[in-house]
């Protein structure tokens, strides 16, 4: 990051300011000064980011600016995420992709061209991504992400994995947990997509005018609690600064977790749960068992997949009529396809969450978004199982020590992960296909 920022000083206002501040040409002093300069935003930088600083403030911008992000895979979805993060001015983006640009990429990966086919995808895409914002250090890594251990993840503030199978996502997620790094996973299939977040423990700050019901330290939902409240007077108004904490589950647990109680207990809510959720779960099972995606024209794949989706539906206790033949047909048609509008929505929403998480503001995704671009649906489901020492799932209670509370109030919250354990086995034996339940669905 520093290399890039020092390079940046070689032109424009920043250099003039730097010259004014330096009396000697001592190289060491120059470096020190350059680093000091790089830490505070220049007027030019504030002018560039003016419209977004007006939304989230200089402090959040500075937090983003010092963040190093790891992005795994840069196809249509990864490109959208990379584009948004680079435009917004994060510190550095490292793109890991061991694959080559294929002809299929030309349709939706708009930062590669015909002449790039056969080149490493990360390298080809990074050239045009870098042009979006010279202030961001864009780096590439063409090795296989599965060869990395947790030390690889430690230098990054946040990790995003795109278009991976469940096993790969879970492996990266586990390494991120060991390195205590927040993790996002996302994927798209034609009109459909998902976002998953495991931020381990994430604290964020909300500043607002105190209402007639001032915030107090309490558990708000199964995953969210208020862990700090301070108040101040500003221009005659009472302003409260509320620190909230969200606690997350790793992907493998989330993927076998039931729907939250408030949905299960409500028939209307239950009926409107998207069939995309069981279909995504079924797709991951299919990939795990068959080591590929269902083929478009294979009756056998269709039968197997339909059985798996039906099982997932039952596991989730969803009404059987939720999964229509029409939906199943549409989902299967879209498997493996990448189209830009879906990539732009899913990647855009994920990048927005990342930006807010880095800035420690706004409610983050908890923890699964299912996007259905055919029906304009985008529900968020908190799919959580918290492991207790006895292995039973339950809701963690927030117990603050005095010291932690002070840290919260200073905005330096850095809660320890309550649970690094990840179960890698399926939750139970019910994932196997039960042939008798397979419905026959005609696919054109």
């Amino acid at each position, binding site marked *: 990051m520093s290399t890039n920022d020092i390079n940046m000083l070689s032109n424009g206002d920043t250099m003039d300011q730097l010259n004014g501040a330096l009396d000697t040409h001592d190289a060491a002093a120059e470096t020190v000064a350059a680093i000091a300069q790089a830490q505070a935003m220049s007027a030019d930088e504030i002018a560039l980011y003016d*419209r977004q600083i007006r939304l989230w403030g200089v402090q959040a911008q500075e937090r983003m600016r010092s963040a190093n992000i790891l992005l795994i895979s840069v196809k249509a979805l990864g490109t959208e995420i990379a584009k948004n993060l680079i435009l917004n001015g994060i510190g550095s983006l490292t793109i890991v992709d061991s694959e080559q640009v294929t002809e299929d990429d030309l349709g939706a990966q708009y930062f590669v061209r015909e002449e790039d086919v056969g080149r490493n995808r990360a390298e080809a895409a990074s050239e045009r991504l870098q042009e979006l914002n010279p202030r961001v250090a864009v780096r590439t890594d063409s090795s296989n992400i599965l060869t990395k251990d947790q030390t690889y993840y430690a230098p990054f503030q946040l990790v995003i994995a795109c278009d991976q199978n469940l096993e790969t996502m879970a492996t990266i997620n586990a390494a991120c947990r060991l390195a205590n790094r927040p993790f996002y996973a996302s994927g798209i299939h034609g009109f459909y997509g998902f976002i998953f977040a495991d931020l381990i423990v994430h604290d964020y700050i909300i500043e607002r005018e105190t209402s007639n019901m001032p915030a107090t330290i309490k558990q708000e939902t199964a995953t969210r609690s208020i862990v700090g409240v301070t108040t101040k007077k500003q221009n005659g108004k009472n302003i409260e600064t509320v620190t909230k904490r969200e606690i997350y589950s790793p992907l493998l647990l989330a993927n076998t977790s039931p729907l939250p109680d408030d949905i299960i207990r409500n028939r209307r809510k239950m009926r409107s749960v998207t069939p995309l959720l069981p279909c995504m779960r079924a797709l991951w099972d299919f990939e795990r068992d068959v080591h590929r995606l269902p083929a478009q024209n294979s009756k056998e794949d269709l039968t197997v997949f339909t059985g798996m989706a039906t099982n997932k539906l039952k596991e989730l206790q969803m009404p059987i009529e939720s999964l229509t033949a029409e939906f199943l047909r549409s989902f299967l048609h879209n498997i493996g396809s990448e*189209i830009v509008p879906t990539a732009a929505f899913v990647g855009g929403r994920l990048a927005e969450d990342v930006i807010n998480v880095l800035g420690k503001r706004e409610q983050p995704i908890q923890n699964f978004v299912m996007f259905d671009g055919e029906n304009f649906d985008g529900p968020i489901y908190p799919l959580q199982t918290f492991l207790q020492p006895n292995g039973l799932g339950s809701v963690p209670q927030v117990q603050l020590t005095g010291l932690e509370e002070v840290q919260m109030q200073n905005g330096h919250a850095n809660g320890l992960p309550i649970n690094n354990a990840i179960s890698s086995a399926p939750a139970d034996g019910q994932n196997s296909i039960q042939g008798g339940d397979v419905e026959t669905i005609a696919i054109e």
Partner: protein
Amino acid sequence: MPRERFLKQSLGAQFANIKNARILVVGAGGIGCELLKNLVCTGFGEIHVVDLDTIDLSNLNRQFLFRHAHIKKSKALVAREAASKFNPNVKIEAHHANIKDPQFNVDWFRSFVIVFNALDNLDARRHVNRMCLAADVPLIESGTTGFNGQVQPIRKRLTECYDCAPKETPKSFPVCTIRSTPSQPIHCIVWAKSYLFNELFGISEDQASDLDHTSDENNKEEIAELKKEAAALKEIRASMGSTEFPQKVFDKVFTQDIKRLLGMEDMWKMRKPPTALDFETVNAEAANVDRQTLADDQKDWSLAENFAVFADSLIRLSDRLDKLRAAQETGNAPPILTFDKDDRDTLDFVAAAANLRSITFGIETKSEFDIKQMAGNIIPAIATTNATTAALCVLQAFKIMRGDWAKAKMVFLTKSTERVINKESLRPPRPDCGVCATAYARLVINTEKTTLESFVKDVLVKKLGYNQDEVEVSNNAGVWYDPDMAMDDNDNLEKTLSEINIVNDSTVIIRGEGDEGERVNLELSISNMELDPSAAAATSESFTLVPDLQTIPKKTPAVTATTTDSAPSNGHNLPTRTTAKRSADEAELDNDQTAKRGKVAEEKKDVTVVEDDGAIMIDDD
């Protein structure tokens, strides 16, 4: 072709239509750049893009088709260059022009299968809405503010049009609030920008759009005093360039005028009285001001710091006006300066003067950064909201292009904990919309005998109440009567209806150009009535309208904002909705109904409604 593999997979047979589609994108800014990328990558055959704007540094954080080297160049032209590279099979036509230019007429609009609005102002949005209605082309309207975004598909006769829902108009302030009794920072900013700046460097205050003169009559005496004050300031303006000029201005507006106001004791019975400033004292203090802090536009400047910026910018602006005068040829109107948020000298002056006035009135001061936003109507804008909103526009287009209007929705981005988008079914057109509503009726009339003149006068004006000077009569053969053709010059008036093709079983379109209160547009099916002397004698009128005129609605105001529109139902008001406050803690509101009620009541106090250039829209309850 591998490039098209996924498009064929997901879009199926529809992809062939998309490849042949000719579409229009109005605006190449935040949403426009994202839209172009999406449309080019999904293979729309011919894309036209119109934008009159040029690229600015502050665009580059989100308008990703533009680079630093493109600053000051045409958005439309640069966007075409950049987006063309995404897909060589797509043809892009760029127009560096105003969408309201006459070349973009109804026939031109009609040549597109779909139009996308990616605009930043109400006026152009309304214009495109009208053109799409006239051309009967589907329109996808979109807008973003901060984290909020929304998309509204519009189709003539099928859905609400952009103007079916009332739109909030720019807010203006009573003259006396601005000049005598400010109570909020915005009042002082408007005073500095629209009064002081213009009196010293521009044209007189009366032309400022954000001043509301409607209650002037009730405050005659005060208005007269204010006129004197302004006249005195004009005299001071004459001494511009002299060393005493800054002190003269300061003494006038921060000492004398304040003292005069203090003399009006009635004014301060219920209000906190202002405190006059003293030039010598503040000037002495300002000598120690650190110049470095003045460059920091995030900082809240002290009295002395505001003074230093005020005095310094006053001199800078005077010098500029001086140079303009020297350069100009004799005989021309004297040069003036205009406020521009991106012009540092003018912004410094307005920020410092506004804060000095705030200090005299005991109102909180604002940083220059904040004042820039309030004075320049800046809308916070980020890359991700534009990306997600533009994506939704294209997903809507897929549904509209295959005629599946049941699946096209009004869609909003939301920061709820339960979902990332909200959707509503599209509503039918409002029958009394002043823009898109059309009523249908049957007119039984003798087409052989009735002249166009009697049709206009007896049927349209007398019976239906259209204004003779603002009504248009047309059918498939052309326009026969319109407001621009004066009665005397219109050769058609003598002709009978049948002579101008208004015959049995034909249709006539009546379009009123007048305002609210007038009847909506009317489509009349004509039935010829054989003249029967006995029947004519029986009724006083020689024609019959079916159904009767009570069923033909009148236009309602589409312009003025109503207070009920900010109701949580999310109504149908695009600008209001894009600016509806979604507080950072909406997550909690979802779970806490009690807090929600408290919050909804508070929302109206917020001061952030920003839309359009050149007008301040503030709720100052």
